């Protein structure tokens, strides 16, 4: 497989991998490293790519596992990702589209959700995968996904309502 063939396969979903990694790891740099790692792993196993039924779902599963492992090892080392040095470079873009502050809040509140709910919310509401695909990626049945998704959406909304009505978090 040549490099361009590989890129043709990988291109459509590399952003999704990156966004999922960023959702879980929060920092942009960490997410970039993780994405790089995932793509390199795929590249090194490029002979096997044709055997995979669904490269995209496979990569998303890989990303999820990779990021969760990373988080686990961070917890084990008693280290936490420091957010103080992390600045969203897209803030100006945010202003351009005249989004109000609450959009920023959504991101913060999503960070507080349990990992599983974060992943499901990310895959469904942002990446718009259907339940069948999510089920394959996470190895879960669809009812469980719906339940978890519903919980995530409700708690996101409740927390947002709180910040809206009091103006504080």
């Amino acid at each position, binding site marked *: 497989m040549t490099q361009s063939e590989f890129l043709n396969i990988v291109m459509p979903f590399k952003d999704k991998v990156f966004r999922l990694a960023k959702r879980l790891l929060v920092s942009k740099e960490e997410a970039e490293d993780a994405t790089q790692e995932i793509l390199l792993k795929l590249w090194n196993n490029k002979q096997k790519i044709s055997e995979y039924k669904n490269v995209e779902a496979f990569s998303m599963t890989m990303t999820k596992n990779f990021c969760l492992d990373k988080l686990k090892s961070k917890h084990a080392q008693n280290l936490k990702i420091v957010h103080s040095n992390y600045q969203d470079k897209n803030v100006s873009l945010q202003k351009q589209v005249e989004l109000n502050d609450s959009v920023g809040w*959504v991101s913060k509140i999503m960070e507080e959700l349990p990992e599983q709910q974060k992943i499901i919310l990310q895959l469904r509401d942002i990446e718009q995968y259907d339940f069948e695909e999510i089920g394959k990626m996470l190895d879960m049945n669809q009812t469980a996904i719906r339940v978890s998704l519903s919980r995530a959406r409700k708690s996101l909304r409740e927390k947002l309502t709180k910040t809206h009505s009091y103006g504080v978090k």
Partner: protein
Amino acid sequence: MVLNNIEKLIEKYDNGETTLQEEQQLKDYFSQETVPPHLEVYKSMFQYFLYTHEEQFTKDVPLKSKKTYSLYQWISVAAVAVIMLGIFTQFEIFQTQPQTLADLTPQERAEYEEAKEVLALFSSNFNNGTDKLMALNMVSDNFDKGTDNMAYLSEVSSTTNKILKTN
């Protein structure tokens, strides 16, 4: 879109029962400027979803192609193996050249026996010949004895010569 309809969709959405199409409808609805105040929360949610969906991975991935062993390299390895095998088996054949009678087919064995008989006959006659040659040997022995006697004769003659000289 009718607000009523949107509210129904929102409820379904909260229960995780909406389809992707319905969610798209919601996203479209909430991307407009003004929404009823009680739905303000959803507006920020859906806008956030749309906004984060735009984020892209911009870093380059250094794809170094691992050194792949081409077919030719494997063929050369195979060729060496074949040559080694060839030499080895040839060697084996030379080693196992001496065959025993048991290896032969019945026909070959018969031929072998026949040849053996012929050779035995030949060699026995040959030995007969050598018996006769023994007689010749004996003659030559006697002949040698004769030459020994001749030595005496020559001695006698030399002494007679001496006698003749002194006289």
